[in-house]
């Protein structure tokens, strides 16, 4: 639904003019690393356990290897999640500590295959389910690493479900093996709503498109149909003729999330920053809700919709 107005013009420009590119080694000011937090809470259907990945930033090296990945995980931190009434300390779990069967299961939850994984992935995770995220509640995160303290707060908003989904023939040239997905949403009036979605095809991992978040600034309280892109066909390797479309016969699951404003701002700035490169783009600093570091502490309220692609 967004219009990146000037996307087309630079393309046009670059087509017209003989451009060339060379690798450029950026100059750094040499400040030290920062903490990076990536932690989520899920309420609603089939919630994933609350977890936090705590790492340190890499320098702007052109190549990063397994050793650097392994050493980026911040170990032995104290990670506490609070709903205002109870504090839960999340234990640290590294894949190397687990027996192979459990390792495989845990790795799969993060979209990884432990058989071929070359890094020792570490996460602070609520394996016992002591945190029970609920819609409408606010959760704080407190992380202590030696003398450093990192904090963040997120709210899980009430969930707004998709009313219905249907597959239609693709726009333009007829092609009976492709389909577009139309969703019907009734946005609640009078409140600001923020949405995010992921897609999974045939039981595979959840993927995301180049643009996963939306807010109701221009459609507050409206009920309307909109096209939801297939994340699998929006990445750089996809055939442009299939852009955003689904393949007839596939089974597709949409993970539909309501998020709060700070959570939206993080993904909105991240996606804008990633997409907004080019001759006239200036930098965009990601708007983080983490005090004392980078990243996101985000709450989701979730619903899932599984459909076979057909029309």
């Amino acid at each position, binding site marked *: 639904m967004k*219009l990146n*107005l*000037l996307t*087309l*013009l630079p393309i*046009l*420009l670059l087509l*017209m003019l*003989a*451009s*060339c*590119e*060379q*690798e*450029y080694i*950026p100059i*750094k*000011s040499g400040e030290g690393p*920062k903490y*990076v937090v990536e932690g989520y809470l899920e309420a609603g259907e089939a919630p994933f356990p609350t977890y936090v990945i705590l*790492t340190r*930033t890499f320098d*702007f*090296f052109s*190549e*990063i*290897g*397994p050793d650097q*990945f392994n050493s*980026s995980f911040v170990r032995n931190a104290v990670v506490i999640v609070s709903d205002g009434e109870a504090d839960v300390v999340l234990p640290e779990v590294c894949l190397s500590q687990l027996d192979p069967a459990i390792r495989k299961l845990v790795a799969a939850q993060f979209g990884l*295959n432990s058989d*071929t*994984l*070359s890094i020792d*992935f570490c996460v602070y995770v609520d394996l016992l389910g002591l945190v029970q995220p609920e819609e409408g509640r606010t959760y704080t995160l407190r992380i202590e690493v030696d003398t450093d303290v990192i904090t963040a707060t997120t709210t899980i908003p009430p969930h707004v479900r998709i009313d219905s989904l249907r597959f239609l023939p693709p*726009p*333009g*040239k007829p092609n009976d093996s492709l389909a577009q997905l139309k969703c019907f949403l009734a946005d609640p009036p009078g409140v600001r709503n923020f949405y995010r979605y992921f897609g999974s095809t045939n039981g595979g991992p959840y993927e*995301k498109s180049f643009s996963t978040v939306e807010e109701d*600034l*221009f*459609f507050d309280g*409206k*009920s*309307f*149909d*909109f096209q939801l892109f297939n994340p699998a066909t929006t990445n750089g390797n996809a055939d442009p003729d299939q852009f955003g479309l689904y393949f007839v016969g596939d089974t597709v699951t949409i993970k539909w999330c309501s998020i709060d404003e700070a959570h939206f*701002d993080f993904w909105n*700035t*991240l996606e*804008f920053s*990633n997409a907004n490169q080019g*001759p*006239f*783009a*200036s*930098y*965009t*600093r990601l708007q983080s809700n983490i005090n004392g570091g*980078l990243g996101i502490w985000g709450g989701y309220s979730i619903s899932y919709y599984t459909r076979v692609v057909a029309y």
Partner: protein
Amino acid sequence: MFRHSVMRIRRLRSLMLVLGQLCVALSIAQPKFTISGYVKDSQSGETLIGANIYLENQPSTGTVTNTYGFYSLTLQEGSYRLVFSYLGYQSRLESVTLSQSTQVNVSLSSGLAMQEVVVTAKAEEEDDNVQSTSMGRVSLPVDQIKVLPALLGEVDVLKTIQLLPGVSSAGEGSAGFYVRGGGADQNLVLLDEAVVYNSGHFLGFFSVFNADAIKNTTLIKGGIPAVYGGRLSSVLDIQMKEGNNQQFQSEGGIGLISSRLTLEGPIVKDKSSFLISGRRTYGFDLAQPFINKTDFAGTNYFFYDVNAKVNYQFSQKDRVYLSGYFGRDVLNFEQRDRDFRFRLPYGNATATLRWNHLFNDKLFFNLSAIYNDYQFRAGFDQEEFKFSIYSGVRDFNMKLDFDYFPSNDHQIKTGIHGTHHKLTPNIISGSAGDVEFESTTTPKYANEFAVYIQDDWRISPRFRVNLGLRGTLFQQTGPYTSKHTGESFSGGEVVQTYSSLEPRLFMNTSLTEQSSIKAGVTATTQYLHLVSNSSSTLPADVWVPSTEVVKPQRGWQYAAGYFQNFRSNTYEASVEVYYKSLRDQIDYRESFVDNSVDQVEDEFVFGKGRAYGLELFVRKNKGALNGWLGYTLSRTERSFPDIENGRIYPATYDRTHDLSLVSNYNISPRITTGVVFIYATGRTYTSLERLYLIEGQLQTDYGPRNSQRLEPYHRMDVSVTLWPKKKEIRKFNSHWVFSLYNLYNRKNTFFLYTDYETDLTQGTASAKAYKVTIFPVLPSVTWNFKWR
């Protein structure tokens, strides 16, 4: 005997003193009369702006023609030999016996054959750069711009202006410019007095000014006289040609990018003339047969300009001008196999109606009614889904100006200006089937008034001052509903008022006939703002007025300079220093994303800026080899409390060193060569400091804003102009211009981008930054013709 002699000598001396005093008294009592009139081009009848009129034996007594070619000179009764001169024209000597006020209209003929073009950025005329109070003021006659090398052969006044000291380019190939550390929106760009809100075509690569329709371009980067206001940094005053009132003529050209055609001629000879000039690009038109065979049939891009002007001289005292400009960029993108259409039209329209009236030979009056309109629209649709965005500025402007020449020691200008603004921010609308969406944004309205008076006062032959004062009043008016107080204002009701008193003072002390020291101070206020989230301004950027949230920008500039001419004004040189302080500067907050904004001013942060620098300028005005060398050493800084806690950082357009060499050599009457060389410190950028993973993908953590620089920018362009043989200069003649842009193929960085790849399973990632260069060595050829 000796004592008697001494006494007689003393008496004689006393007598002489008394006689002398009597003569002075008599001379004071002697009546004064005024010579006034217009100075014109003999072939076309075009009035000449900034032509010099002075006494042959007393060059310091003289004046200069105003914007309409009018002059007024008051002298005692007697006989005089008056010199009328204008650069590139044969000077003319007129003997005048003055026993009553008289009107002398003079036509000057282009003294140089057209092959011998002199390229100078002329500071008014001859030694006027030394004698006048004006500072940082440069005029560029268009004929002289046309022989310089041009990107893809497109002659561009804005790109030539960038070659002057104190002026820097907005980027590779860009027609945008920054003056003495001011933002792109801080330049007042006027076309026949109408404000041009967006002066760029094709994302700013080409300016909207078709050189064939332009008579004169004046840039004021320093001492902005009180007659101008509304912008902090500079004035770029462009006058369109009036049209030949002697004979019909046409001129035009065919280039790689566009073609041009201008028709002009008398409607009533010596009284009335017209001019109509058009330019259009056609690269994509030529490709249409190929595009139409693809799924992209209907896709096209072009831009065009139309300039038109008529004037009528009702009497020796009354003349009316009507001029207009209309230009558009049009991008249509069609992808039929996806049922997708994208439309992007944008452009300016201006209209200026002016009435010149001479109340008497000392009082010149001009009344202007001006309309301008900048519109930007973009929209796409696919099946039943439609989306569009619209923004724009529309002004109605009335100006009443008087030029009063009470004596040769005073030239007074005074006037009153009033403008009604309508500023439409991004209004978004869309529909999905029957459901319609619309942003709650509404246009904003404002009135802007100014009253000014300035006097160019020659206190003594060696000391002149230009005293000016401009008072301005700005009112945001309804309909408007305050987001902060909830108060509603009806149409025309005043929401917020700002006012300002802007003193302007410039002084000139002549040290010798050929050298002077000048100093000046300029206060300016800006009520309309263009804030860009890009590295350069773009057509989609929105002009916003001062409101209850957004305060006017205010600036003070202090400048001083030493000016010296050599060898009968063949060479001139100047050193100028300036310091500029800027308040209430505007930028977007950090992490601003423009896709979820209703009121754009809620995304602004406010801060301050300063700029200071040293400018050196040497030019050779005459001879087969001519041109100039300009060098600027400067610093431009900004500071916003809400950006990195107020850290002072260099602005995006900060250039420590900026050097331009412009030279033109007439090898023979048939061949002129032009060379331009530019060197500038690399542009600042925000450092790519660290990397981190989010959802398995690398992200950038940026360092402090503008803390790093790209490598220096430098480039050389050359051109060769082949003129016709002299005998061919008759009814029809044509010439060829061959240009090579970026002669030695310097790979200047146009932009940087990053490319990240991550494979978590393998535990590997690659993060690469690339610099992109767009203009390699680019040849071009243009064929220009003139027929009369």
